[in-house]
């Protein structure tokens, strides 16, 4: 009771207001300068075309150009395809791994470590290693396939294989990360429910379908959002492995922004692309926070 009164009193305390803003100020200043100011700036730039350092207002014309640009459409398609494949596959794999790593298992911590370590390694290091795995003929993958007399395609050189090769690598990188979230979710599940189910003679598949799956649903939604946004954020490997090629077959949106801004120095287009990426990420987050889940997970 006194606590409530105290809090009601504090609500109107100007001292608290000043203190709160003073405490928030250091974080706020960096948040504004490096998140909000650039967002506004890039939106503004996206309406200007610059030719020889002279900028003039062109309205939505650059957006029209980008949306008709074949390279952009290809890059966007790649990114969406990548998300559509890697997100469900790595989540299912992660759930499978978590269910078993959580249970009684021989060599559990070793197995868990094997799944988790790719999460920790820099994308650049992963790219260096996987570049050699995917090397034609001498690479690890082709040597392995050679044992069965299979002649592998040019994993990174063939436009129809390169995105698939990237998907395989990203699933390997991400599944262990998502497993951790499922592990946390599974450990908070009530043991009694499982015991009751076992008394009722429920088999493992039924237990999974009727108890585990519904109960890890909130975790799945959370992982879904991380996985989807990550598929737009992880692009470092392209710098080492393909530079987005061959013929943009493995290019992704953020990497395309990087080349447009820092190789082609096309400011207007880079701004438009950044705005599009921001919109994609904001839509995903609004969908998540507004529609799927009201709770804050942090």
């Amino acid at each position, binding site marked *: 009771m006194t606590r409530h009164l105290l809090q009601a009193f504090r609500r109107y305390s100007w001292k608290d207001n000043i203190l709160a803003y003073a405490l928030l100020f250091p974080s706020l200043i960096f948040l504004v300068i490096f998140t909000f100011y650039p967002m506004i700036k890039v939106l503004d730039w996206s309406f200007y075309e610059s030719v020889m350092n002279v900028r003039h207002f062109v309205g939505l014309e650059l957006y029209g150009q980008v949306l008709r640009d074949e390279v952009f459409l290809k890059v966007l398609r790649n990114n969406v395809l990548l998300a559509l494949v890697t997100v469900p596959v790595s989540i299912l794999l992660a759930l499978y791994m978590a269910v078993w790593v959580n249970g009684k298992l021989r060599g559990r911590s070793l197995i868990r470590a094997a799944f988790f370590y790719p999460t920790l390694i820099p994308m*650049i290091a992963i790219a260096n290693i996987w570049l050699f795995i995917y090397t034609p003929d001498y690479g690890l993958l082709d040597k392995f396939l050679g044992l069965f007399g299979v002649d592998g395609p040019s994993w990174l050189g063939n436009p129809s294989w390169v995105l698939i090769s990237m998907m395989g690598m990203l699933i390997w990188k991400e599944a262990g990360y998502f497993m951790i979230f499922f592990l946390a979710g599974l450990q908070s599940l009530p043991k009694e429910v499982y015991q009751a189910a076992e008394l009722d003679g429920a088999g493992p598949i039924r237990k999974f379908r009727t108890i585990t799956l519904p109960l890890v649903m909130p975790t799945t939604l*959370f992982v879904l959002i991380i996985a989807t946004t990550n598929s737009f954020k992880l692009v470092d490997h392209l710098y080492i492995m393909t530079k987005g090629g061959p013929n943009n077959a493995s290019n992704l949106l*953020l990497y395309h922004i990087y080349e447009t801004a820092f190789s082609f120095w096309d400011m207007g287009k880079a701004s438009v692309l950044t705005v599009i990426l921001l919109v994609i990420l904001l839509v995903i987050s609004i969908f998540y926070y507004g529609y799927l889940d009201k709770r804050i997970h942090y």
Partner: protein
Amino acid sequence: MHRLLNQIAISILALIFAVPLVWAAVTSITPAGEMLTRSNPFAVTQPTFANYTEAWRTIPFPVYYWNTLLIVAGVLIVQLLTATLAAYAFARLQFLGQGLLFILFLVQIMIPPDILIFPNYTIMKELHLIDTKWAIMIPFWASSFGIFLLRQTFKQIPYELDEASRVDGCRWWQSLWHVYLPSARPTYVAFALISISTHWSNFMWPLIVTDSVHNRPLTVGIAIFAQSFETGAQWGTVTAATMMVIAPLLIAFFFFQKQFVESFMHAGIK
């Protein structure tokens, strides 16, 4: 029966996951001559550290290690400070615009500075910070992720403890120091591990804002090195260099495995 099948399946899966690292480790000690001729890619007849000495000789590792350490520490220390203050405000103070500010901070979780490479580059240029370690660090000095993580922990600390310390005559920073900080230690460890591994791995942003050896972190350094080789003969050197970049992380993981896994779990679910 199904248990055995799954034990086998999951073990094979774990083995597949481990292969790239094991193979990289084996390749890094394979002499250049054996690299392409060997039929079994895991067999080394004459293991050698020549690749490591070669990598150490060609890449200015001491400079890169030092840069990465400075950057990682410089980011973490400031983040801890800013996040602690902001988290305390969000957890324990009532103020105007609290809800709005909370949402503003939330935006940074979805749109980290890494996405805004292009506009942030021009901001750094205007600040005349291009090709400095400051440029790599400063955009990450506010961490919404750290703020939310700590806020959640601070909220779980009984308010009575805070009040008791006030009765004893503590000012807010004294109760923060004596009450909140000690109770939140596991959260600080969790956040530190995540922050360190994230910034150790960061690549695109440092690549854009640095232009010289004495400011580049490890990731950019080895990427530029790896660019110059593509033939099989240099695999040994590149993998040795790669192993040297990931070794500190793997060693840290080995020693802090429990904390690492728990910290990532901690970070995701609340």
